[in-house]
């Protein structure tokens, strides 16, 4: 367990729907080192967002465990988990989910109200975030008065205000056009460098995933390592899927 910022082992998440059971996450395991940028890709409905929610402590698995900073978050009570999330984790959603009655600045500062992590460098950090995200002139506007790109920038600032050690991003560029998507990604990577955090991103965009240190692929609830520092593990997507289905195991990691 040492040296990994995040480690998930055999995580299972199932949903009951009338008489059937849907296994969204089927015995998924992954390891993320401190400071790594990990991308999870897959087709729509493959279960990647569900996996991300479980890893971020927003959902509870039926089986398996998730360790972050050596702590088993799946064994925590809801209150303990809430405090842990506020202190160490940041989350960016696809639909940004800004609080509609609060201004951009108030939305950014929400996490500080929940978990007070302000110190003497806080104001400096806030200014840097606002400058980097280029939202300085929209701080007193409500979310309904911002464009989609601006709303996503506000959501990113909100996720980073408490300087989380792990940032989870669920398709952060999914609702943006190409130009805005590239800008947001650049910002995320820049801020990652600036703050030195671990970034776990769900995306269906291969061009974004290619920039990651590690790529996992999700298919029908199963997780496969697609790329790490040593390179890619498949010549084509289909061959890898076929092999994985036949063996029912991903290649083990060192």
């Amino acid at each position, binding site marked *: 367990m040492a040296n990994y910022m995040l480690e998930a082992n055999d995580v*299972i998440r*199932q949903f009951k729907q009338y008489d*059937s*059971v849907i*296994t969204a996450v089927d015995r998924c395991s992954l390891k993320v080192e401190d400071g790594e940028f990990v991308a999870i890709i897959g087709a729509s409905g493959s279960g990647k967002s569900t996996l991300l929610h479980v890893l*971020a402590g*927003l*959902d*509870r*698995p*039926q*089986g398996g*465990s998730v360790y972050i900073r050596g702590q088993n978050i*799946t*064994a*925590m*009570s*809801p*209150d303990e*988990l*809430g*405090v*842990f*999330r*506020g*202190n160490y984790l940041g*989350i960016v959603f696809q639909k940004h*989910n800004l*609080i*509609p*009655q*609060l*201004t*951009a*600045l*108030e939305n950014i*500062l*929400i*996490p*500080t*109200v*929940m*978990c007070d992590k*302000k110190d003497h460098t806080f104001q400096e950090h806030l200014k840097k975030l606002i400058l980097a995200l280029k939202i300085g002139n929209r*701080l*007193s506007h*409500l*979310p*309904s*008065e911002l464009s989609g790109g601006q709303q996503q920038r506000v959501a990113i600032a909100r996720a980073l205000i408490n300087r989380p050690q792990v940032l989870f991003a669920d398709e952060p560029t999914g609702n943006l056009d190409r130009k805005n998507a590239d800008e947001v990604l650049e910002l995320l990577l820049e801020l990652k460098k600036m703050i030195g955090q671990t970034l776990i991103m769900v995306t269906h965009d291969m061009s974004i995933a290619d920039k990651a240190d590690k790529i996992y692929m999700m298919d029908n609830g199963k997780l496969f390592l697609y790329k790490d520092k040593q390179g890619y593990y498949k010549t084509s997507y289909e061959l890898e899927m076929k092999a994985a289905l036949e063996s029912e195991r991903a290649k083990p990691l060192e």
Partner: protein
Amino acid sequence: MSLFKNLSSAKKNITYNYKRYICFLVILFLIQTLFAFVLVLYANNNANELNYLEDEYDYHLQLQNLTRDQFYYILDKSNNDMNPYFEVTRGTETQISGTSNVRYDMYIKFLDRDVDFDYNVFNSSLEKDIAELGENYQVFLSPLYDYEDDLFINTFICFLTCLFIFVCGCIIIYLLDSIMVNHYKFQYGIYMTFGANFKKLFKTAFAEMFVLSVMAFIPSQIVTNISTYAMLKGHGQPYTFNLLSVFLSLILCICVAAVPVFINIKNVSRKTPLYLISALDNTNLISSPRASADILDYTFPGKLEALSVTRFRKYGIKLIASTVSFSLLFFGCMYLGASYLKTLDYRKPEFTINFTGRKVVSEEKDKEDDSKEDDTSGDGSIYDIFENDKQKDDKDKSTVYDFTYNDEIKDYLYSFEGIEAIIKNCSTYAIDINSHVKLSKNQARLFGGETNENGERCYLNALYTVLDREVADIFDYFGYKIEGDIDKVINDSSYVAIPYGYNNADKFKLSVGDTIYIATDSKMLHSVYYVSGDYDYIMGLMLEGYEFSYAEYTVGAIIRDMPVGVEFPLYMNGEAYTRLTGNEVIYDSIDIIVNPDISNDTYDALLSDLRHAADYYSNMVIHNNNSKVLGEIEKNKNYSSVYLFVAIVLLSVSPVLWFFSQILFYLKRRPEFDMYFSFGSSKRQIRKAYIIDGIIYASVSAVVYTLMAFLLSWLLTAFLNSVFYAPGEYVRFYYSLPAIPYIIGLLVTCAAAFLSSLLPYLTYINACHPIFTGKKFEGKKDIISEGETGL
């Protein structure tokens, strides 16, 4: 889509989404029940009133003290008319005590529905001939004659009540429907994107309201008719099922539902689809701030949730305004109901006797019996008259006595069973003797009276009235509050007693011991002409045209709670009265209040006794006000039940609005609370956020409701005293805040405000949110094995 398809589709929609429509069903049930209750009661009241009157009175017209010739003349006309329009139901022949004379009473019933027409025909064709045959008869109309007028008034009241229910119903349905339309405007936007227009949307919405109205129809009719039956039977009255009321209530309810739906759908259809689609959350309810709040030092939920409530103030103000309004309507209804009951309980005079006549007795007897007359205390002793009547002939010898009310007559009347109080009156209008009352600026309230050149207020509408112990006892009988010492006024001619004002309103700011002035003499400066005008206008003219001299009087007592009409009585003892007006103290009319619980036989006996008493005083006229019968009819209308029923329905609207609105409002705030949770808040903090909202809404509602209740009480008191009940109509209302209706309204409003915030929290927590289950992960216990998944 055909009508049948629309209705069928509406029925399906309601069945599958019944939770959405429960509030509407409840409200439409209540509205329909209310309509039905008012209409059924109206129909039954009219029938019961007619039956009651026909039981009590077999006549429309009563002719009293007819001569024999008059009596048989009318009877002959009745029997021989080819097209009779009246019949003589009965006649009585009574010997006048102490004489050989006989008086005749005749009771006439008109045969046509239009009794006014028949009465006019009777007067035009017979009155002249009857008058030629004798002068001293009196004509009285019975309450049965006034039934048609009463029917008109009942119909008007029923119409007003239904109109009130209609307007309130439309407002309630409008509020509920607009809450629902606001919540589902995203769906409306999608429908409109794909071709739905006003006509289609309205047809669908109206079909749903129609189906709901029909669903509420049978239960409402059952409840109405059973409760009306129980209420009428409880009062010993018959109940009649009225089919017209049943269907009229359904039609009115459908109209109530149609109007607000029309308005709401019209508003929605005017907006662009994009506007509706983009308003998925509560954005349209938010008031945009000018600058961000400094939330760095805020706590969660504490200050942060309070900030959210202020940002949602548009929503909060609308919700509180509409819910508190209905609580206030409840309060107002209960207030009016209590006031109505007060008017029913007030003792009104049953008989009014005018001593306008003069008794003719022997002149010789007058001289011989001087010594006996000296023994009497009034202007003529009853006992002397009895004595004289036994001995004289009634035609040849005559002496005139003036008879007015005196102590002996008082004792005589009080000896009759059933008489509870006798109100005597001796007064002179200030305007008749060119007098008025003058108060200083500080002694008068803002409006009323006429200001003279010195800034003093002058009142022409004073009625100088004699006060003695007997009049003062009547104040006690009615329970008027007296400030000061009434005996001082009775015994000292420099003291007066004055009421609080006139027109049932406070006009004076007087204290016991204050000095007031009464104009005693006037010198004309120039002629004053007026044809008509109110007292203040005429006072103004008189102040310009005359120079007045004044006498000082001290306020010895102030009388509160006494009903006062346009003229206010200024009480003084007999000496002061004579000195001021130049008139002797003569009581020429009295009002008699009868015990309301006496039997019909006792009542008839009392009436007979009074008639015999009148026999001794020719032209002592007894007016029967029929207050007892009219009071019974009024009570039997059960209007107090209508007030109560309407009040309860109106109060129930407040919690329905609270819960319906808040449940949908918080449904849209769930993502927000999910976000708070994702940032690290606990379940306890989320619960506290909802509780803070509830406390804020409940507190603001309580303050608004309390302030408005005070204001409404004041407005209703002024309204009742000056508009609704004619000034001087026996009842004076004074300002008060009825405790029980106020507390009930306050508790319901605050409880609904608080609980309507708490309930969404409970549904939020239970909405299958796995994190909120609070269970720690227990290893493999929760895993469904591969075999069980079926994969």
